[in-house]
């Protein structure tokens, strides 16, 4: 079995070309692959399509950095602080350049990826009827159900070029264990042409194979596995570290103007070569203050016979 373990910069270089569609932030507030997103910014990727549910500030950062031409999402902003200033500037004034916005709800974007995962062309839903999300959507179309003739909206399948998912642990063969709030991670992994996992820990294959029900997706879907401890900061990773709420407030403050944001980007993204340097800038004290302190182990499960 050939290893899929790569350094982050090489994984992004190889599997995130300009113009790619990327699913990110699929677990909603936790497990957001900030380290991977920052590497995308450092490599100056352009014309990306971002796909996600509630993406929190990573989408705002990528938009502000000029990497994005289209957003297919249910929500873009700062979950604990409110609006995203870069998202606003792009949508309201075309700064740094205009973006196309394809609005979804969490259910409709999840169903679009589920349809992709199931290999079906669309899924009919009864949500969003009468909404302007449906009325303005370029792909969702109304159609009565041939069974019972109730109104439905047909949500066509989405197939991201790549899903980037942060996970607790993975093996070098391309399998990952993820736990906690799962959001649409599984749908994204299975619908995407391939997955880049950034993992807190790289573990032996036996560790992953010891619990096949916990594996997110099969290795055939994996492009690359990258070891990035702390790769989700400031978002939380269950069992590893908590959400750095202050970082979201600081980002909110420091993204009010394009100049503020440029300075923030220089300090936290462009001015640091990698995640280790980022965590160094964050400072050991602050980083340790976020660490999980009270272990709460899942009850044992026996796969023996």
């Amino acid at each position: 079995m050939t290893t899929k373990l790569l350094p982050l910069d090489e994984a992004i270089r190889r599997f995130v070309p300009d113009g790619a569609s990327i699913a990110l932030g699929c677990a909603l507030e936790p497990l957001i692959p900030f380290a991977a997103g920052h590497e995308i910014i450092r490599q100056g990727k352009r014309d990306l399509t971002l796909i996600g549910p509630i993406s929190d500030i990573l989408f705002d950062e990528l938009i502000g950095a000029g990497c994005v031409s289209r957003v297919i999402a249910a929500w873009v902003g700062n979950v604990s602080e409110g609006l995203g200033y870069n998202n606003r500037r792009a949508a309201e004034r075309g700064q740094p350049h205009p973006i196309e916005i394809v609005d979804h709800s969490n259910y409709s974007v999840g169903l679009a990826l589920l349809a992709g995962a199931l290999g079906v062309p669309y899924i009919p839903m009864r949500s969003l009827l009468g909404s302007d999300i449906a009325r303005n959507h370029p792909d969702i179309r109304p159609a009565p159900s041939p069974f019972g003739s109730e109104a439905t909206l047909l949500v066509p399948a989405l197939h991201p070029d790549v899903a980037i998912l942060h996970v607790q642990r993975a093996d070098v063969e391309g399998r990952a264990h993820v736990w906690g709030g799962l959001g649409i991670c599984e749908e994204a992994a299975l619908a995407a042409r391939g997955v880049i996992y950034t993992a807190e820990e790289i573990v032996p294959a036996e560790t992953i194979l010891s619990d096949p029900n916990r594996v997110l997706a099969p290795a055939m879907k994996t492009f690359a596995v990258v070891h990035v401890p702390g790769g989700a900061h400031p978002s939380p990773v269950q069992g590893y570290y908590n959400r750095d709420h202050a970082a979201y407030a600081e980002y909110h403050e420091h993204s009010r103007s394009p100049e503020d944001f440029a300075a923030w980007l220089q300090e936290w993204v462009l001015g640091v070569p990698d995640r280790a340097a980022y965590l160094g800038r964050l400072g050991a004290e602050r980083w340790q203050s976020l660490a999980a302190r009270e272990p709460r182990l899942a009850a044992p499960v026996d796969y023996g016979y």
Partner: protein
Amino acid sequence: MADYTPQELMVVCAAREIRDGEVVFVGMRLPLIAFALAKRTHAPEAVGLFENGLVRDTPSRELLLTMGDAPNILGAEWATRTTALMGLLAQGHANLGFVGGAEVDRFGNLNTSYIGDRAHPAVKLPGSGGGADIASLARRLAIIMAHDRKRFPARVSYITSPGWGEGGDWRVRVGLPRGGPAAVITTLGVLGFAPETHEMELRSWHPFTTADEVRASTGWDLRIAPDVRETPAPTANELRIIRECDPQGFWTH
């Protein structure tokens, strides 16, 4: 001056919308505290749903800034995929759902997407999240709003989360399977909807304001419910629980 904040009273009003044993789509911010308050007072058997895939029959041990914070996952009775969780909502399992918005109109339609023209918005708002799904599919909807004329236009410029549409039987006409707004809990009062027309009407004004001030803060000629009254103030016990849940007042100050 009242010994509580408008947000604290809103939490109490939101909690009072939760009946014991109900399945509640909790969402974010004030309803997180309202769910905890209801569980610890009149609705110990209420169950909470969260769009990131969680079902909880106990409130989290700590204040949540997001539904995905670690304390909300620990002790959940189910942590699943968003699509599977939303399937419960789509099947009609949620008796009550909470949503907030930037704008709400006379028929309870919510805008959390665009202020002004969608192509060149004056303000780009974050969007639906799960709000439009909750508004479409929950059996009853409770809306949480700051109350001023700007946020209460006669008609929202963009319907993110469908309320009663144009009123009357609009929801049936567009094919929504059930639901519709039942209450709008604001910084100034609690509003409901008239039975047939589904037009918003004032049910109660908060103790620190008046019916006239509520009407003056609303962007259309707001109707008054026949049984309008002052909102009952929070009890000492309710305030104690709220302040235990949010000691720093992150959401309630």
